[in-house]
């Protein structure tokens, strides 16, 4: 009877615990990271009896945890990938929407500016048309500035987000280290079995950490897990967490680094390039792939527009007869001093309008070895580095590295071997663009020179031949204007330059042996011959690099002249040239207009955003499927628990009945003895 009682009591205890476990499962159905627990029952050792073995009831072998390590680590990896793409996508969308919005995008502003310039070409003397250029150019300036400002704001937001995420990661790492200690302890007192709820908590912490950054884990025999990020940089070892931090990037102040402490007093080690996955990975990817690259492409558009426009504008004549000034403020940027430089010399970047096609969207690293400088393009496929000793690659030398010049200014200690600079020729250009004119009359719509045939004092023709001269063009401002009373004259003679060949002798122009151009109307020359014809190198280089064309049959003594375009308020030649820059293939090796360069940015951001979205959706799907696999093992199903509840309750009731029966038997026995 005592056996029956013991058996019944053992069953009561066991099923009470089983019911508690079901209750625990039900109550944690919505607890993140909770793995359902189960009671593993075992029959008690039997007692030997003459007839064989007598059963002794039931006991709890273990309270187990439904779980799968492999699936859990897959979930973590999928989580890192998904939050990487999610972060990238949500930031990308902000740029995507900005560039796509016609109210904030650049394309319409550029179009309006060029249209306004056409309107000035239609009506060069009209103040209203000139005012339109003033206001459209100002709008264009502010569009560029605003877009650049948005990029700057996003960069700040990324950098501050990065700091927040790092402090979250540090908190998680600390908690993981603490829970590691608790698990090791619980394993010690639990016969090598750690408390399941502690394991769940740690798993959830690992999962949260994998949201922030991609991690790998290694479980130790004492139950602790070590956590690594990147390519094996240690974050948690047993009960110790190593703090992550944001440290300044020595070379690039705009892009701070992520570093991990190495314990003790050592300097934190920068691990930015190793960080992959998670929100941090997404932020880093966005910073380099969208922000840096996008802002540089925007800047390329800005540099091209500013420098090409200024160059053309300088070749024009304003409404008051002065040569054109800068339409936009000229651009120059300082090379960024590496924080570890020991010298204090500086280097500045300027541009050469004739080499705009060579400009790239890349940054450059400039290293000094004590004698020479080496400029290396920071790209995936950089060309051979440019090695030089100053003052080469300065504006005076005419050399450019991919379309930009360098100007070196020695400080008190000049430069030291090992000094380096980060050159960012384009990144800040969109923010620096500035419309420089203050008065509509300053718009140089006219060309500074015009050609005429020579007349008498009253404007009557004196030439007797049929020759005509086109309006001249200039390429530089050297020697322009020609000066009052100094029109360049061309007189037809059969002995140009005393050579015995027909042509025009030049007065007030190229001197000495160069003072003639050859023109033989008995040849194809009469259908139009362009000058200079190349027979005298650089013939007009001191006169603005003048070019013109003569056609027809001149009579001996016929004269043309090229003179300053005094009073030429109705001339629109330079406005046409300025407007024509819209369709000129100025950038990227002469393959792109300014607007095309901008469209490339828009479609590039569009495709990358789309790609991020597709990847994000795919990773979300993958995460959900891994999560479901894990959940199918680990998570609670309420119907199942309800069934268990019934099952254990019935067993409990039956066990109670066993005790009842034991009592009855005992009573029966007692009754028999009493009799």
């Amino acid at each position: 009877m005592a056996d029956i009682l013991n058996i019944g009591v053992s069953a009561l205890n066991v099923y009470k615990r089983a019911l508690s476990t079901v209750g625990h499962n039900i109550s944690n159905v919505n607890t993140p990271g909770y793995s359902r627990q189960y009671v593993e029952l075992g029959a008690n050792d039997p007692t030997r009896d003459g007839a064989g073995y007598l059963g002794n009831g039931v006991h709890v072998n273990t309270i187990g945890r439904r779980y799968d390590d492999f699936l859990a680590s897959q979930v973590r990896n999928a989580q890192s990938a998904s939050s990487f793409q999610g972060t990238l996508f949500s930031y990308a969308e902000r740029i995507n929407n900005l560039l796509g919005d016609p109210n904030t995008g650049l394309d319409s502003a550029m179009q309006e500016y060029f249209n306004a310039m056409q309107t000035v070409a239609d009506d060069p003397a009209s103040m209203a048309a000139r005012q339109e250029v003033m206001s459209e150019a100002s709008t264009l300036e502010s569009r560029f500035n605003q877009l650049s400002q948005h990029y700057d704001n996003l960069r700040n937001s990324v950098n501050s987000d990065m700091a927040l995420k790092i402090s979250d990661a540090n908190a998680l790492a600390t908690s993981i280290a603490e829970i590691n200690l608790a698990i090791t302890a619980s394993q010690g007192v639990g016969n090598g079995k750690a408390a399941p709820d502690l394991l769940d908590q740690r798993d959830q912490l690992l999962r949260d950490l994998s949201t922030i950054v991609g991690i790998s884990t290694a479980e130790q025999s004492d139950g602790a897990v070590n956590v690594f990020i990147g390519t094996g940089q240690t974050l948690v070892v047993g009960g110790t967490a190593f703090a992550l931090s944001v440290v300044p990037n020595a070379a690039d102040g705009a892009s701070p680094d992520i570093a991990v402490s190495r314990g003790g007093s050592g300097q934190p080690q920068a691990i930015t390039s190793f960080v992959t996955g998670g929100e941090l990975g997404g932020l880093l990817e966005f910073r380099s792939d969208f922000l840096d690259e996008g802002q540089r492409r925007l800047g390329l558009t800005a540099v091209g527009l500013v420098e090409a426009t200024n160059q053309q504008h300088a070749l024009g004549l304003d409404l008051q007869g002065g040569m054109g000034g800068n339409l936009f403020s000229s651009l120059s940027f300082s090379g960024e001093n590496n924080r570890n430089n020991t010298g204090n010399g500086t280097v500045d970047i300027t541009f050469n309008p004739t080499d705009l096609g060579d400009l790239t969207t890349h940054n450059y690293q400039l290293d000094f070895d004590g004698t020479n400088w080496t400029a290396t393009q920071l790209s995936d496929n950089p060309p051979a580095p440019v090695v030089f000793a100053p003052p080469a690659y300065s504006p005076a030398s005419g050399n450019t590295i991919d379309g930009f010049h360098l100007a070196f200014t020695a400080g008190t200690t000049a430069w030291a071997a090992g000094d380096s600079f980060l050159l960012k020729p384009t990144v800040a250009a969109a923010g620096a663009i500035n419309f420089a004119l203050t008065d509509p009359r300053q718009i140089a719509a006219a060309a500074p020179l015009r050609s005429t045939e020579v007349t008498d004092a009253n404007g009557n023709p004196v030439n007797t031949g049929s020759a005509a001269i086109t309006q001249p063009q200039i390429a530089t401002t050297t020697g322009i204007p020609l000066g009052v009373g100094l029109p360049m004259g061309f007189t037809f003679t059969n002995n140009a330059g005393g050579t015995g060949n027909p042509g025009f002798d030049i007065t007030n122009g190229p001197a000495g042996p160069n003072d003639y151009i050859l023109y033989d109307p008995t040849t194809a020359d009469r259908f139009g011959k362009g000058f200079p014809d190349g027979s005298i190198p650089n013939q007009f280089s001191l006169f603005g690099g003048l070019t013109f064309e003569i056609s027809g049959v001149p009579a001996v003594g016929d004269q043309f002249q090229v003179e300053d375009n005094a009073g030429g308020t109705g001339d629109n030649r330079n406005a046409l040239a300025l407007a024509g820059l819209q369709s000129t293939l100025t950038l990227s090796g002469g393959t792109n207009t300014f607007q095309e360069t901008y469209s490339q940015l828009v479609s590039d951001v569009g495709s990358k955003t789309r790609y991020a979205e597709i990847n994000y959706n795919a990773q979300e799907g993958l995460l959900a499927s891994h999560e479901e696999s894990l959940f199918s093992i680990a998570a609670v199903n309420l119907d199942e628990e309800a069934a268990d509840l019934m099952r254990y309750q019935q067993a409990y009731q039956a066990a109670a009945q066993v005790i009842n029966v034991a009592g009855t038997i005992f009573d029966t026995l007692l009754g028999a003895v009493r009799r």
Partner: protein
Amino acid sequence: MLRISTPTQFQRGINSILEQQAKLGYTQEQIASGKKVLSPADDPAASAQLLELGRAIETVNQYQENAGRAKSRLEVEEVAISSAASALQRVRELAVQGGSDTFTPAQRASMAVEVREMQAHILSQANAKDSNGEYIFSGFQGRVQPFTELGGVYTYNGDMGRRELQISADRTLADRDSGFAVFMDVPTSAGGTQNMFAMIEQIAVDLEAGTAPTAPLADVDEAVAHLAQVLASVGGRLKSIDEQTEVNTDFVTTMEISRVDIGELDYAEAITRFSQQQIALEAAQKSFAQIQGMSLFNFLN
């Protein structure tokens, strides 16, 4: 059999509702804006194309504006020159009459009065201004009066510039002619050149003196023919502008059609899609509610 946990069941239901809501929201935004492509990421290639198309349309519209200005200026020039040509024709008639022996010196003097009037008329036409108040025959120097007269001597003060306006991507067209080319550089019957005003001046002076004009009638004919030729050139340019304007209009129309094709929403398709998505959302909501309502606990007591 894959065991489905309660959180999974819940999450699946919620996810399908959220997904349908997102699709419906996107379609609704499309319908509200009338745009097929809402942001560059929706269709990067189409967005780039839309930018190109918009740019092409805006640029050609600007050419149309330029062409319109060139046209109105050339029309001003056409009026001025044809008016000057009529006056010159009258001068020719008077010169023919004045050369006839049947007229007395007094009659010739009165003819001279009319010649002077014609001369003044031609001068005023040669000094014509456009709607902006700029002289049309002074070359680049729109503010300089092209022709002045002092003591019977006529002087051209302009230059030989001709302003060109852009009327298509690769075509510019002069919106004026220099006064030198129209009135100063006029061919003579002898193969030289003469100043139209000086020629008329000579006729007037001769008639005022009561004598027959000494200028050869053929020179007057040359001048008449010269103005007719300038007029023809202006007319030719006006025709070119009309043709180019038509080409530009066709271009813009074609581009607009592409823009609509690429960028604008097909409402019929969108509304069909909207109702399909609405049905899908309702189905997701309904199935979620029903599945959540099913529990073994409902049967326990």
